[in-house]
């Protein structure tokens, strides 16, 4: 069930009311989704703390990238292409650090983005309960619950002057 609001305060009240209400088959942590046109840090606040795991991807990616670079470079210099150049060591550490650094960042960025896609579940099929208004100026609150709770939810939504309520039955 999706309800649209054009006012953030109203949406917040709806969420808090939903949380406090005991609705069958509805768990505020899992079954409540807020769709908004902009990034609201407040949404996270009132939705409660949900861990973001993207940073772990970042760390792993960056470290992997750096290590890969260093060993690829040093390995190729030492093993395969051991050429003396400019009177420098065959495996010169300082210049290798530059590329290690670049690959560190490259790995970090790539894997972070991969992590983002995984964590955010993208790319995804759009759910049928969606309104173009969400990308414009309205906030949508998507609730998943038993069908029996539909009336209750509608009540809560309506109470806070929902602009539109969409409903999808069953699955």
């Amino acid at each position, binding site marked *: 069930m999706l309800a649209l609001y054009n006012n953030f305060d109203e949406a917040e009240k709806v969420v808090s009311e939903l949380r406090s209400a005991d609705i069958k088959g509805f768990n505020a942590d899992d079954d409540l989704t807020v769709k908004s*046109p*902009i990034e609201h840090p407040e949404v996270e606040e009132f939705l409660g703390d949900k861990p973001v795991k993207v*940073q772990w991807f970042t760390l792993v990616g960056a470290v992997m990238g750096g290590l890969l670079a260093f060993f690829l470079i040093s390995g190729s*210099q030492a093993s395969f292409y051991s050429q003396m150049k400019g009177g420098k060591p065959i495996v010169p550490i300082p210049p290798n650090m530059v590329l290690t650094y670049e690959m560190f960042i490259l790995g970090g*960025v790539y894997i972070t*983005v991969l992590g983002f896609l995984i964590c955010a579940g993208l790319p995804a099929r759009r759910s049928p309960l969606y309104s173009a208004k969400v990308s414009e*100026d309205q906030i949508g609150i998507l609730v998943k619950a038993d069908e029996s709770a539909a009336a209750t939810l509608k009540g809560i939504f309506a109470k806070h002057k929902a602009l539109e309520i969409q409903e999808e039955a069953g699955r």
Partner: protein
Amino acid sequence: MTKDIREDIAWAQINQDVMKSLENPRKLYWVILFAALMVFSVGIGCEIYQYIEGMGVANMNNPHMWGLYIATFIFWIGMSHSGTLLSAILHLMHADWRKPIYRFAEAMTTFSLMTAGLFVAVHLGRVWQIYYALPYPSERWVWPNFQSPLLWDAMAIFTYLSSSVIFLYIGSIPDFAIARDNIHPGWRKKLYSILALGWEGTDRQWRNFRVTYLTVACFLIPLAVSVHSIVASDFAMSQQPGWHVTSFPPYFVAGALYSGCAAIITLFIILRYVFKFEEYMTLPILKKTVRLTFAIAMVWTYLNCIEFASVWYSHDQVAKDVLIQKATGPYAPFWWAMIFCGSVVPFVMMFKRFQTNIPVMFAVSLLLNLGMWLERWMIVAPTYSHGYYPWTWDHDQWPSLIQWGIVFGSFGWFTLLFMVFCKIVPSVSMYEVKEMVYHRSQATKKKQLGIEGAH
């Protein structure tokens, strides 16, 4: 103080205004596009000729091994830094006035990097063997030379380009969703549907989006700094007088930001005019950008002075000779023009009445860019003509028309890319403008509440 943006602007209005820029182009658009195409074609023609005949047609020689190609390469790389500056640094600093203008700045980053990349190829004597520079496991286990600053350069540019593209794309996903939702059905709708990756603006998406965007921004800042310091290493790591300067990396970075900001002002004015973005690209934002540019101009001027001073104060007669030659030799007109454009012209930006004067700022930004281009040329050429070995000095070298043609062609290529971009990707970040409006109105409300409460 006037506001950066009207707070009462309707969100739907934002969508409408920006989406309009993706709609049927105006006549002016076609004129610019065609002109860019023509200039680019000239460049392509010159490049084909150079490819067939050899690098000699560029009128490079021994000792002038690098010419305008490398100078223009650095110019484009430098240009790319402003996008990063605006989106990443200001993002981290929560300077929200950046929001209406960062998208095109980022696009500028990407496209100027792509243009710079072209010069890597144009500059090579055997461009058809360019893949030798890639670290791929060949059957003979021959690897590129990882000690070479040029290879670092290639790697840094690749990293920067791909990260910038990703950054630009990630930041555009919500806007692609808007475009998807608002555009009339057709191939573009399909395109945006794909590009939006099914974005719905759910809290989960936004949450991860925020962290990712921040992380990538964090990465981009050191990356951007490293890219131009590596480009500086091409020179600073060498042994040549006038290049072997410790202060080159910061100098290059400052120069990069400088030229980038100047370019942003130019494009800001053009976009504002062409797409009628007066509501978003407002004069207060221009003013802020101009002030930022002025600050960077002063940093650059300072670093310039430092470089000259350290050369002058040193016992390195050879480097000193290069400096003297820059100021008095055959390159003197260009060198002084660079000083004028880079260090004198920015003082116009000190005056409030010019800061929002669009024609003046347009002219100033073009002069600054010219100055920065000259700066790059003045880094590359004089050292060649006046190196360690007096016998090989050559003061008479002048780039051929082929070389100039390719340099101009690159501007056409950049414009071409940018014009196409403007019609495909919303050049103002809609969702972030909304955020900006929202936060501004919240703040105003709070302020009003506070004032009321005090009563």
